[in-house]
């Protein structure tokens, strides 16, 4: 996927003026946030499980060499194959080769963020193989030729009228006068359309929520059941997964599963959690004959041991998006690449470069809600700060911003000067704004005052008051 993260500001402005998107985001604030809070309250051990989840991932990452090798060994022992992909280009080539060898004409796909990251659909289509997204949200986006805007609710920005329009255009063999106003009619139509494609596909591609070193299993978590039909019916099952999906044992996966659905959709458990190990056994009545796991690095091993190491604990639940005031205001597309919200603001610069994605770590109020709800306790604000520091070190910001930051640093490192400056500024602003009590516009801060007033300071500065109270 071609990144448009450089255009973040323009993207965000457009998103703020999009009434359909704003309605969808308002609904998300109620839905996801409240449901999560409810199920978390029902599980008193939730925070203790978060600590354990973090420890499991930290342990796995610290021994990633061992667990990767063991996972590969177990997949092979079960009759499957592991393919190592250094980058997106290599992963695409591997998938295409497996599909070509199979003589595949159509490929069904379960939802996979790695699939988005390596842009596998475009690659297969260019080589004459038809990819079919089977997750309802992803199918809608495929028809509309759009990227997902949310980790687990990919088509959250699309209205039902737009879906109906896309369906009428794509499903030409159906009665043009059919009613498609109700969500149930849209779902039933997608279900009907997808049936034959599930059965006809030669290859099924899924992602993975977990890779289990103990058994060589891959695991997916879905609510629709599309991932299971995708991986059970075709002759070949390909799993796309990145290195950090590894956990040691089935028990470890179970611990993190208790966090995943609750954090993601606010469900106690997702409808389908499926562990797949190798191809069908000789005596099995169904299942795929081949099982391939494509292990993607694409910059992740370079994050190990750096200040972005902890990002590798992410389980892609989307809780940080749902609770982020920035995401809640502009949705996912503004971020300009596959990963959005706070997790995207940290991960995207690591994967496509800070030159490309420099705006993203700045798209934060540092309110800290993302870290507060992250099931894996990833310090997202801290890592966004690290990106800002790198940006500064590499002179990537505009000259005026750098100058302002330098001026700020000069003052912040000289407390006495800062106190005097603050006192003078506060009393001058207080004097100038005494009549109205607030400023509607200020020189050099037009952007800030465009949408709000700055209250005029009253009385002594915070530091002065603090000191006065300390003495009292």
């Amino acid at each position: 996927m071609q990144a448009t993260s450089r255009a973040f500001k323009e993207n965000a402005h457009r998103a703020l003026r999009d009434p359909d998107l704003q309605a969808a985001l308002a609904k998300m604030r109620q839905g996801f946030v409240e449901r999560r809070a409810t199920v978390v309250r029902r599980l008193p051990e939730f925070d203790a499980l978060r600590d354990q989840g973090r420890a499991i991932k930290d342990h796995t990452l610290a021994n990633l060499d061992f667990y990767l090798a063991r996972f590969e060994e177990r997949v092979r022992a079960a009759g499957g194959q592991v393919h190592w992909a250094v980058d997106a280009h290599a992963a695409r080539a591997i998938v295409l080769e497996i599909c070509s060898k199979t003589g595949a004409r159509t490929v069904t796909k379960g939802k996979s963020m790695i699939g988005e990251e390596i842009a596998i659909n475009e690659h297969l289509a260019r080589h004459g193989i038809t990819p079919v997204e089977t997750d309802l949200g992803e199918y809608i986006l495929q028809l509309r030729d759009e990227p997902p805007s949310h980790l687990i609710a990919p088509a959250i920005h699309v209205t039902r009228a737009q879906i109906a329009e896309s369906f009428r255009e794509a499903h030409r063999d159906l009665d043009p006068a059919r009613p498609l106003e109700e969500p149930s009619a849209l779902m039933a139509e997608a279900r009907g359309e997808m049936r034959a494609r599930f059965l006809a596909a030669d290859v099924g591609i899924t992602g993975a929520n977990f890779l289990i070193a103990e058994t060589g299993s891959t695991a997916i978590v879905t609510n629709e059941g599309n991932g299971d039909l995708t991986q059970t019916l075709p002759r070949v099952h390909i799993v796309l997964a990145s290195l950090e999906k590894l956990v040691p044992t089935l028990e470890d996966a179970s611990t993190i599963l208790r966090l995943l659905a609750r954090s993601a959709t606010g469900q106690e458990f997702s409808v389908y959690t499926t562990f797949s190990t190798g191809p069908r056994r000789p005596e099995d009545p169904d299942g795929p004959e081949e099982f391939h796991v494509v292990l993607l690095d694409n910059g992740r091993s370079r994050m190990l041991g750096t200040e972005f190491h902890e990002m590798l604990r992410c389980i892609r639940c989307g809780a940080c998006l749902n609770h982020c005031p920035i995401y809640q205001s502009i949705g996912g597309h503004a971020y300009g690449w596959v990963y959005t919200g706070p997790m995207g603001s940290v991960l995207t610069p690591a994967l496509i470069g800070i030159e490309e994605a420099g705006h993203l770590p700045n798209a934060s109020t540092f309110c800290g809600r993302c870290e507060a709800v992250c099931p894996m306790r990833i310090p997202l604000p801290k890592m966004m700060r690290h990106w800002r520091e790198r940006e500064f070190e590499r002179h990537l910001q505009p000259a005026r911003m750098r100058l302002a930051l330098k001026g700020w640093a000069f003052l912040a490192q000289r407390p006495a000067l800062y106190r005097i400056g603050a006192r003078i500024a506060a009393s001058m602003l207080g004097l100038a704004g005494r009549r109205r009590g607030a400023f509607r516009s200020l020189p050099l801060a037009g952007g800030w005052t465009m949408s709000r007033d700055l209250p005029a300071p009253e009385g002594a500065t915070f530091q002065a008051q603090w000191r006065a109270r300390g003495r009292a």
Partner: protein
Amino acid sequence: MSEGRKTVMASVARALGRDGPDAAMRAELDRRLKEPRPNLIPARATLPPVQRIQLFVDMAREASATVAVLPSAKAAPGAIAEYLRRENLPPAIRIAPDPALEDLPWGDWPLLSVSRGRATGSEAVSLTHAFAGIAETGTLMLHSGPYAPTTLNFLPDTNIVLLDAGRIVGAYEEGWALLRRATGGAMPRTVNFITGPSRTADIEQTLQLGAHGPRRLHILLIDAGTTA
């Protein structure tokens, strides 16, 4: 060894600053995998049998499954015939080729047409036999094998699942322990955890049942005890 593997592993080794774990560490990691230990088990998953079974029923119903309690598996064919009539479904069922299901008294219900084997896409109703039930979230655990085609769990519109109350455990981890005992540690191709019927909220965040998998999940709980 492929180039890709070499490059990725070298990059991981560089980041970890080691050429694989030392002997002591390797022994510890091996042990961690050979004797998998459960982590924290929520109190909810540690109830005594009667409450545990009740929790399973409550949680399954909360996830929009329907549950009927039968005193014995022999009552299943009659209960199924009645269920299909009530739901206005055709009196035909595809059952897993499992002796425990095949040996049920189907002959007592001559109007019910019974076929055996995997699903092909044309069957409206399937009957499968759960390996276990997980009380903490009302989850069914099934696995593939000669007697258990995975397609029966996903293709038919209605999935009926027979579950013995004695197979209801508290936590997922107990399910894994049961499975390891049953298979001598080998993993079947597919292990399915199923909690309620298929659903989606992909259209304007409106929850709807029956996306691509079964629209209905009906659990026949075989329990001679006192479950509601």
